């Protein structure tokens, strides 16, 4: 979740730059989670993510005078975090692996969602289940990097489209396209686990561009629980 906006941030930054460097601890406190989760979701490794988060904050401290307030401080931090994560990922990954895991945007084809016509209301306790969260983390990890980046910033960190575009150095249209594809890939991977009784089945490994037409099963009976929740 996004940290609340700190209205004193501008003043804080001015005071830190004027020499009250200790205030930097308080400046970044609301964003500790944001920075860690962003890097973790990219690197999928706790130790690397923690180290990356520390490096991000140190880099932010050293480059604070370069922050002009044109973007929000949080967006600026995420940009540094994302660069740190990408740098570490490049180190860890060979170019060959890269080209295998990342099909080009042009030839990925349609993303067909998983269709569950026996969809039922999801009991709240099912969403609380640790197992389901684990499945979600695995599914996010399975997304190709460029989709994972957008999904992390938009749907985990809840940055808006413009902030996400700025942090990733891409345009808003691409943010929308990638986010949609990321969500549809996750839907396909996770839908089997989200069924009424939370029955765990083999979701299969979704592969971009190889979606089949959805299978129709059973009786359709859709629950309105979430719709009601959201309204």
């Amino acid at each position, binding site marked *: 979740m996004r940290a609340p906006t700190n209205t004193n941030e501008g003043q804080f930054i001015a005071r830190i730059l004027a020499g009250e460097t200790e205030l930097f601890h308080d400046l970044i406190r609301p964003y500790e989670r944001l920075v860690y989760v962003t890097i973790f979701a990219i690197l999928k490794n706790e130790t690397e993510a*923690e180290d990356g988060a520390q490096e991000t904050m140190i880099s932010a*401290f050293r480059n604070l005078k370069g922050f002009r307030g044109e973007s929000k401080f949080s967006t600026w931090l995420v940009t540094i975090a994302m660069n740190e994560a990408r740098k570490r990922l490049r180190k860890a990954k060979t170019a060959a692996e890269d080209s295998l895991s990342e099909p080009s945007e042009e030839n990925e084809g349609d993303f067909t*969602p998983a269709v569950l*016509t026996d969809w039922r209301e999801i009991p709240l306790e099912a*969403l609380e289940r640790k197992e389901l*969260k684990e499945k979600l983390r695995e599914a996010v990890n399975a997304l190709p990097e460029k989709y994972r980046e957008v999904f992390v910033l938009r749907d*985990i960190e809840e940055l808006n489209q413009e902030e996400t575009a700025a942090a990733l150095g891409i345009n808003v249209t691409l943010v929308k396209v990638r986010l949609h594809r990321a969500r549809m890939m996750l839907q396909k991977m996770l839908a089997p686990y989200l069924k009424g009784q939370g029955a765990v089945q083999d979701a299969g490994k979704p592969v971009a561009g190889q979606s089949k037409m959805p299978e129709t099963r059973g009786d*359709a009976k859709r629950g309105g629980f979430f719709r009601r929740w959201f309204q």
Partner: protein
Amino acid sequence: MRLECRHVWEHISGYLDKQLDPEVLAAVEKHLASCEVCSAVLDSTRNILVLTADDRTYELPVGYSERLHERLAAVIGRSE
């Protein structure tokens, strides 16, 4: 405007983000009202986003904050 299922799926994300043009939105809603398959796709996608936004899905390592501030303190101390 009349939409087929596969066209509705292309708009799921835009629908959830409330970014559809009024004409498209009306067509999507009309389709959803009578199509349980697409409604299920929409609901499952929405549920995933609810789960994703839950802070407890991604937990911080124990002691993360302490270690972070300790390391920062060392860097800040040196800068003075």
